[in-house]
């Protein structure tokens, strides 16, 4: 699809000018300048993004890595109190922070729960999204209505939905427990018991995630050519065989992409846990990201260095996933 920025005509002319007329005095277009002349359009178009990412992601990233090797906390960083500037007094401690984190059980507990959380959220929302998309992808009375209703959770900002769920989950007075009481079932401590809190946060995240999966899967289903199904019907394949041998393979590219994207989003999902349980009870529902946030913005004194070290470890984990993803893309023949 891609075309060269500069047309080949220009290229040829350039090459000729080097060989033939390149000896004009004072005129020596260096390789750099020629590259620039050919590609400056493309570079100008990507420059804003590169600048923004460089300043707002690049610099903090380097600085975060540096902070993770110090003992910086609220008490010893640079501060401005009124007109007085108190200089920073933290110092380098090498890899002590990492050693402390990796030899402490808290990190491994949080990592285990984060993996459980990510896998169960993605698996459940994918299965439900695919099932609902399959049901909607056919002639059906009220299809538009169902579609609008099922996508609704996506139209509401996530933090609003999370607050609503907190209202529903309220142990003494919430709607869910009142409905259960109507059926003679004891109140469930949705957000106050470690196990139930875990179930609750997963429920809410799946509820939030299904519409995305549904829409993506619907798009994927519609991109499968109808002729394939017609041919299969001619050959006498039943519905399950058609699903197994046409639909599933046809969805593979879309499915692998959305699973990866939503896996990363879920791994980093901050608002659901932060707003629903604040990581509690205790730290039962705290995932890696919310725990790192807690270290630098919730506990006192704020532990900037520890938080940064957690952040670097999280990033390392995600990089491994990204590399695996790139391998997979290569195998599928993506050119870049």
């Amino acid at each position, binding site marked *: 699809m891609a075309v060269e920025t500069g047309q080949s005509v220009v290229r040829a002319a350039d090459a000729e000018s080097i060989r033939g007329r390149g000896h004009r005095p004072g005129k020596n277009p260096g390789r750099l300048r020629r590259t620039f002349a050919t590609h400056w359009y493309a570079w100008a178009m990507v420059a*804003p993004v590169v600048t923004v990412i460089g300043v707002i992601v690049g610099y903090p990233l380097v600085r975060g890595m540096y902070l993770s090797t110090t003992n910086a906390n609220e008490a010893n960083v640079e501060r401005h109190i009124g007109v007085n500037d108190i200089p920073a007094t933290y110092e380098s401690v090498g890899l002590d922070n990492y050693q402390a984190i990796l030899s402490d059980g808290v990190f491994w507990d949080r990592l285990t729960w984060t993996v459980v959380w990510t896998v169960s959220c993605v698996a459940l929302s994918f299965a439900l999204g695919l099932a609902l998309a399959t049901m909607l992808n056919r002639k059906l009375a009220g299809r538009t209505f169902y579609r609008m209703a099922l996508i609704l959770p996506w139209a509401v900002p996530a933090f609003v939905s999370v607050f609503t769920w907190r209202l529903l989950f309220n142990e003494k007075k919430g709607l869910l427990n009142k409905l259960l009481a109507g059926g003679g079932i004891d109140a469930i401590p949705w957000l106050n018991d470690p196990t139930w809190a875990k179930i609750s946060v997963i429920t809410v995240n799946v509820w939030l995630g299904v519409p995305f999966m549904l829409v993506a899967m619907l798009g994927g289903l519609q991109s499968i050519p109808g002729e394939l199904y017609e041919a299969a019907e001619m050959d006498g394949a039943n519905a399950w065989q058609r699903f197994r041998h046409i639909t599933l393979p046809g969805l593979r590219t879309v499915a692998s992409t959305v699973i990866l994207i939503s896996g*990363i989003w879920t791994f980093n999902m901050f608002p659901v846990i932060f707003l629903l349980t604040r990581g509690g009870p205790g730290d039962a529902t705290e995932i890696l990201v919310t725990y790192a946030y807690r270290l630098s913005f919730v506990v006192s004194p704020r532990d900037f260095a520890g938080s940064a070290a957690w952040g670097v470890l999280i990033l390392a984990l995600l990089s491994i996933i990204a590399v695996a993803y790139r391998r997979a893309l290569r195998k599928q023949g993506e050119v870049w």
Partner: protein
Amino acid sequence: METKETAPATTAPEKKRRPRGREERGPLASVALHVTLLLASAIAVLPPLWLLVTSFKPQSEAFSTDLVKDFTFGNYDHVLNDTEFPNWLLNSLVVVGLTTVIGVFIAATTGYAVSRFKFPGMRPLMWLLLITQMFPVAVLIVPLYNLLASLGLLNQPVGLVVTYLTIAVPFCAWMMKGYFDTIPVEIDEAGRVDGLNPFGTFWRLIVPLAKPGLAVTGFYSFITGWAEVAYASAFMTGEENLTLAGGLQTFVNQYTSDWGSLTAAAVIVAVPAAVIFGFAQRHLVSGLTAGATKS
């Protein structure tokens, strides 16, 4: 789920009948399909609906299971006139408006460049865009906090706008690349032959054709800013500087639980998002999958 279709079919009298085609199903299967979809729709709709219902109840009855008994606009009145809510709304609108406009524009130019041109630095750039999407809040938030503090941008909308751009733009650029890939290159070539430079081609020919893609990208930027919690909670302090995500937390925290105000405010927050969603959703499927399958 497809198996549901065949269940009644196998009990049919003749043994060797043709399997049902895609657009046929027995009455039992139809009922099962509709019951399942109705149940799923109910689960999807109930929480937002309950939010709406609760917002019209007097504060004291926030937890009653009745549908509205004493209908009142009291919560809305209170939120709009006696709290900082209008300020938060304004802050959010400024931040989100700027993020959307700038984000869509630079995501589109970037997406166009990586879709159409081969240039040195393209692969690293695409790799960078992909990896930036994965960045957890936790790595950047402390240094970013320090950076914004030293630039005097804490509590300033500009600080949040720039931060949100880094979240929204990488994904949007990928989506736009996928969308531009579906627009035939011949159109660009025709423009070039007619004497347009690459910017002209992009602006006058491709952008008008890419409106559906731009709509989805704009929608994604809007939602990113409208619903972001972590940065907004950390960078904006002081009642009047909060954005909606931060402000609503003050209604229900460990000290107070003003569910009446919260529900009313939440409804006001959800409505514009839902309206914009309504406009964008027509293009959502094509836009998202174009971005998703190609990325």
